[in-house]
């Protein structure tokens, strides 16, 4: 693939814009959301939040109660890869968790 015009020497950049846009989209903070589930015990959910996110018990309980009362809670936001890893860990504990782009 040629990188520059042989006459003018101008550098072609046909795909840079698109790639940059893709990278930007990936770098936007993603959210790790946990959804309510009537089966999982409140104490179990709190323990999972402590283990996965390293949250102190009070913060873990606050999120657990938010899930219970509001149906969902945003547990973490940041880069996509890390968010996916958190969701994977949460699924390992059988919580209903999703990765979402912020609105």
């Amino acid at each position, binding site marked *: 693939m040629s990188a520059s015009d042989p006459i003018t020497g101008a550098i072609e950049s046909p795909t840079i814009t698109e790639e940059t846009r893709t990278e930007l989209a990936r770098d936007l903070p993603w959210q790790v959301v946990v959804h309510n*589930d*009537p*089966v*999982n*015990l409140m*104490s*179990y959910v709190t*323990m999972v939040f402590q283990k996965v996110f390293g949250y102190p018990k009070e913060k873990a309980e606050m999120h657990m109660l938010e899930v219970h009362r509001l149906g969902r809670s945003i547990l973490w936001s940041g880069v996509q890869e890390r968010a*996916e890893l958190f*969701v*994977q860990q949460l*699924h*390992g*504990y*059988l919580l*209903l*968790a*999703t*990765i*979402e*782009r912020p609105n």
Partner: protein
Amino acid sequence: MEVFGNNGTLEIGEIDPFLAELLRQIPASTNPGSVPAAERRLFSAPADPAVEKEICAEWKLYVEPELRRIFETATQTVEGDLRQLGDQEKPFANCTLRIPIANSEAWLNALNQARLALAAKFDFTEAELCDHYRSPVGSRRDLSLFQVNFYGFLQEFILREMECRNDAAPPNE
């Protein structure tokens, strides 16, 4: 039945034959079988499939097999501990189950698999799940609801013991 922690072991004593049978049913109950709702609950989507098609496709390919492996390993650990219940000299005598504390996470996981799979199979409502006074005698559905609550009770006991041990452990430097 009585439950207590004892020198690095979670001990469930005086288990009557009915509850022993429910314990033996844990591994089988984790199997979603041919019930799509149970399969969907144990292996839920990591994102909205309509919006994040690529993420969901990669998840199916790479993450789901790993989750299956994690769940199977936990169930096998529980199966191993449950072999103690098969060593009864008298088949209708009460028995004791000793769970090494190192296996407590596997127990929590397997019990959760079983509870979620049963709840999805029988489509229990939130009101039913919260009704702890419902009699277990009756239909297969009633028995399964009792199973879900009994496994939940065991989870609470294991969590309490784990927390007690964490509180007693010296803080990390």
